[in-house]
């Protein structure tokens, strides 16, 4: 075995400098942009914390969110003079621990947000991609459906339907999912229009690929960036709508700890105990803000041309 020769050293040296001269790979660039983006970092961190808390709520929460203790009613949070570490965020008018309710409330918000987004995503993407790819009559019909949907006032229709069908968590999810697909359809339609005439789609057509295959392996991978951005925005949208419905008494039903419902239940006591509406509202605000920051950030990073 000879010691490393001068030639070896020269070769490695060349390789190293070649690597320096070469542009970093797109994946590395993307990763750099993602982690260098303040909005994404903050949004993802806050969202991750909320997600973990929601997931581990049964382990983390100090009390049963539904357990009432009428001897412990309306204890203020710990930063008040009368606060106690036994109930860090205090208790509500039924003596239920507010921190535990807040943790379980995150589960409800996230569940509704994600599932409603998935439902609306499937509907909206199908309509939008079909309209964008086929154009012509299909496009006309889809456009008409989108316009019709946009003219119906969402909150009002959701409230009316929920009140007639009866309200449960899953009915709220389905009603929201069936109502808020418009943005998916609009964005997917224009994104598909942008890529459908590109060369690689023409090449796939020339190779004789089936329409399904073209849509799945040529179109979809190239519009999935925009899909993810819309999906994040729609999670936030669904979370806000659920909170508004629950606030008006026609969303998630008591005693479930929905954040909107918590604000609604504490409404009458806000004059004396404003933190009762402050805490769940702030939680809602933080969740929606972090989702939006993440969505805006992803748009900046993956599709800067769509920034406005």
């Amino acid at each position, binding site marked *: 075995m000879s010691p490393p020769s001068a030639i070896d050293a020269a070769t490695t040296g060349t390789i190293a400098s070649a690597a320096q001269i070469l542009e970093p790979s797109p994946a590395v660039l993307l990763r750099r942009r993602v982690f260098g983006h303040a909005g994404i970092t903050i949004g993802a961190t806050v969202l991750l914390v909320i997600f973990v808390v929601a997931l581990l709520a049964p382990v983390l929460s100090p009390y049963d969110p539904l357990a009432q203790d009428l001897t412990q009613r309306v204890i203020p949070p710990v930063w008040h003079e009368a606060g106690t570490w036994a109930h860090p965020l205090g208790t509500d008018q039924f003596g239920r621990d507010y921190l535990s309710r807040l943790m379980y409330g995150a589960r409800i918000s996230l569940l509704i947000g994600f599932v409603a987004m998935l439902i609306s995503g499937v509907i909206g993407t199908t309509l939008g991609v079909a309209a964008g790819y086929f154009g012509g009559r299909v496009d006309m019909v889809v456009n*008409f459906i989108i*316009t*019709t949907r*946009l*003219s*119906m*006032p*969402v*909150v*009002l*229709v959701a*409230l*009316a*339907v929920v*009140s*007639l*069908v009866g309200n449960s968590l899953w009915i709220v999810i389905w009603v929201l999912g069936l109502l808020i697909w418009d943005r998916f359809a609009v964005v997917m339609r224009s994104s598909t229009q942008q890529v459908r005439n590109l060369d690689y789609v023409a090449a796939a057509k020339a190779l004789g690929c089936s329409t399904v295959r073209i849509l799945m392996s040529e179109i979809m991978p190239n519009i999935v960036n925009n899909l993810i951005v819309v999906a994040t925005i729609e999670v*936030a949208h669904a979370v*806000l709508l659920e*909170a*508004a419905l629950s*606030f*008006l008494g*026609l969303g998630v039903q008591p005693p479930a700890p929905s954040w*909107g419902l918590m*604000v609604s239940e504490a*409404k009458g006591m*806000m*004059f004396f105990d*404003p933190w009762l*509406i402050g805490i769940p*509202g702030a939680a*809602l*605000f933080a969740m*929606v*803000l972090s989702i*939006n*920051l993440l969505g*805006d950030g992803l748009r900046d990073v993956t599709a800067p041309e769509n920034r*406005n």
Partner: protein
Amino acid sequence: MLHYALKRLGVAILVALTVSMVTFSLLHLTGDPAMALAGESATEADIENIRHVYGYDRPFLVQYVSWLGNALRGDFGRSHYLKTEVASVIFKRLPTTMILGGCALGFALLLSIPLGVLAAIRPNTIVDRIALSIAVVGQALPSFWFALILIFWFGIEWRLLPITGTASWRNFIMPSVALGYYVTPAVMRLTRAGMLEVLASDYIRTARAKGLRPGVVLFKHALRNAIIPVVALAAVQFGFMLGGSIVIETIFAINGLGFLAWESIQRADLPMMQAIVLVLACFYIVLTFLADMLNAFLDPRIRVA
């Protein structure tokens, strides 16, 4: 232009008809109107009787056509709860919601257009960042929570503004802010994007090269062109706000259409719910139609497409 207008008008009418059909079916198929009317203590015979008296036993399509025929003549039937003409109740409540929507839109435009212009003049500076964060925060603020916060500070702690009712113009301040704030981000972003695009164009450079004062260039040449899409967006947002005012009107006890809608939902007052949804939808359709026309009038390229 006429051809384009007629085409758009036809689509608008078709959309209105579809909306009427969808809302009618939604509300009729998801609940049993006779059962809701009869109440919980009613017998099977009572329900059957109500079904017959109100015509709910007729085939679905017949019910829809007769309802639509009456609605086209301005007759939305009688409210199940109030026992009065639905149309007259709506007519009485509509102005309040329009005033609220108008004030909210006014507030939103007054806040967002200057911010958007400022952000566009100084892109990527601290001014731009502040404007952008206002937009981001605005989009995440739950309107009902924001309304309660306003009530808490301005109504209770500082006692500056009345918190419920419609007695004077001061009653409209908080609801307008709460309702209008939500549309501020969209208008601001569009103003900013439009201004950035216009400011980079050749005729602005020419105007500057001619030695026109910066203010004249900015407002007479740039803003005038950048504002076109904003006006169209504002019209559409106004339609959204009329629909979204249900939350705000309920919180501030404002006796408008939104509050009426909420009351009607609580009372399972089907004819009223149907009529309100249709009226709000028609407002939206008319507003988008007008926005389209405005856009086409100001930008001839759209007419050809």
